[in-house]
């Protein structure tokens, strides 16, 4: 497995499956650097990054569905643009749970080294999500 995209896909599938035992095969667990722009600053170590992901995104936004729109793969990096949707079930961006189904776009830039993910930079359309959550409810 040498392609950055293959490594990225293996990381994502293992993370979603909770396959912690084999995660270290595709992620540099100790050296992993991560940022989610607007939600968390740079951290080092997979555990800290996953805790941020869980607290900032996975808890407030449930029942995820994502669609890959564009992939650009380089020699040691891959950029993925996706459309995502989820249900707002807990406080997010200071907005209490609305129960709304929200949709947004997200870009992930991942760097790999020696067959493992070493860096992840995620950028969500936080402004789009915020506007959706703050919009007045539609009249029935």
């Amino acid at each position, binding site marked *: 497995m040498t392609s950055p995209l293959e490594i990225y896909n293996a990381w994502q599938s293992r993370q979603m499956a909770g396959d912690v035992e084999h995660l270290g095969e595709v992620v540099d667990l100790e050296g992993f650097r991560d940022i989610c722009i*607007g939600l968390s600053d740079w951290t080092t170590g997979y555990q800290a990054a996953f805790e941020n992901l869980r607290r900032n995104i996975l808890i407030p936004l449930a029942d995820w569905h994502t669609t890959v729109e*564009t992939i650009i793969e*380089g020699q040691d990096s891959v*950029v993925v*643009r996706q459309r995502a949707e989820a249900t707002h079930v807990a406080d997010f961006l*200071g*907005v209490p749970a609305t129960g709304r189904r929200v949709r947004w776009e997200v*870009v992930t*830039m991942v760097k790999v080294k020696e067959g493992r993910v070493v860096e992840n930079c995620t950028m969500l359309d936080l402004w789009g999500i915020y506007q959706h959550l703050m919009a007045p409810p539609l009249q029935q």
Partner: protein
Amino acid sequence: MDTPDTTLPTPTAQAKEELGRQFYLPFNTGDFSTYDRILAPDWIDDLLSPGQQPGPDGFKAKVLEFRQTIPGYQVTNDEILVADNKVAVHSTVHSTLRKSTSVTSPTDRPFEMRTCDFHHIDLGRIVYTWHLENFYGLFQYLGALPGH
């Protein structure tokens, strides 16, 4: 505006990277003639900003507005990745913009905003650009988020 020369050879990855890089120069210099060279006449900007007209001319007007509204507007390309006919660019917008609230202190950093763009290239010109900016961070910095 000239019609693209369809006899041109397929641009190299390096040429595509340079095309992507040139997209940001007018933000810094105000020389919008760059867009006459690098954008296709029917270039699509996805999504248009509020009040922006479609096409290169509408974009020139919007960039001019950015430069006039946001002091010291400068874009730095942090990462550029090229594959096939696509160029991904992560950038940081720097400005000398500072909070206008009474809680501003001399240690406050000027505003910075991360952006990410995907450019599609055909016949040596950019034909489509999808973009994402951290506007939430901008409004948060300015204390302009309703309800906060």
